[in-house]
């Protein structure tokens, strides 16, 4: 018997469905747009597959998975996929995040 992974929640007990909705923030839409463009849903690029996106979301620990919002999981996963594919490096990302935080943070 394979142990059920954290994201695999179909059929498990859970609380009442809260009919929550929010209008997505622009940064969330941009994360979505990066997925659409990198995966070639729009345009010619084939730098990300939906399976990679899911794999790297599912690789988040249960605690992180629950704590993070939907597009927080996505941006983490897309970034991880770009590092795994060698499109960007962890060093470049670390440098850039420091730079952006100083500039915009």
């Amino acid at each position: 018997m394979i142990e059920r992974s954290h994201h695999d929640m179909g059929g498990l007990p859970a609380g009442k469905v809260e009919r929550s909705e929010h209008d997505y923030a622009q940064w969330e839409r941009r994360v979505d747009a990066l997925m659409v463009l990198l995966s070639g849903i729009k345009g010619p690029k084939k730098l990300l597959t939906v399976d990679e996106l899911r794999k790297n979301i599912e690789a988040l620990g249960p605690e992180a998975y629950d704590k993070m919002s939907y597009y927080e999981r996505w941006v983490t996963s897309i970034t991880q996929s770009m590092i795994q594919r060698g499109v960007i490096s962890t060093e470049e990302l670390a440098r850039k995040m420091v730079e952006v935080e100083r500039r915009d943070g």
Partner: protein
Amino acid sequence: MSELGKYAPLTYFQLMEVSLRELLVEKGVVSDAEVDAVATDMKTRGPERGAKVVARAWTDPAYKQRLLADGTAACEELGLDVPALRLVVVENTPEVHNVIVCTLCSCYPRMLLGLPPDWYKSREYRSRVVREPRAVLAEFGTAIPDEVAIRVHDSTADMRYLVLPLRPADTEDWSEQRLAGIVTRDSMIGVAPAKAA
């Protein structure tokens, strides 16, 4: 959100988004214009495309047959692009009510309905709708009589479902366009009926 004219600092993940995007732009992988164009397109995309498909199926029996046989091709017939996906349309009847979910993540017919609502992606909906759909639908104010079977369809990355809701009574003389106006997102997910009022 800004408060008293002061911008809140970026969260860690917003910082990650800006950084990732700027690196990809610097490397020529994407351009800011492309990202903005796609983000804006999703913002304007609601359930109108899905509603158009449903209204056509309600008014054109031959189209409905084609839609149920091959959802992707039938959407393309209306000029709606369903990129690289198999779309399966499931028809509500007086005997069967259909509802869609993605238990593993958040797969959704976004090309027809826009981005999914938060509750569709929630642990509560994903966990429970496959086990106790009648109870979950009741929480949406949708009472399905016991004699009506409920079928729950679990979407995948490669295959999306769309519910073809029942056409409300007393809409026989309505135009296709007027009908499209009453086809809601929730009726195409299957958590609510389409209503004439």
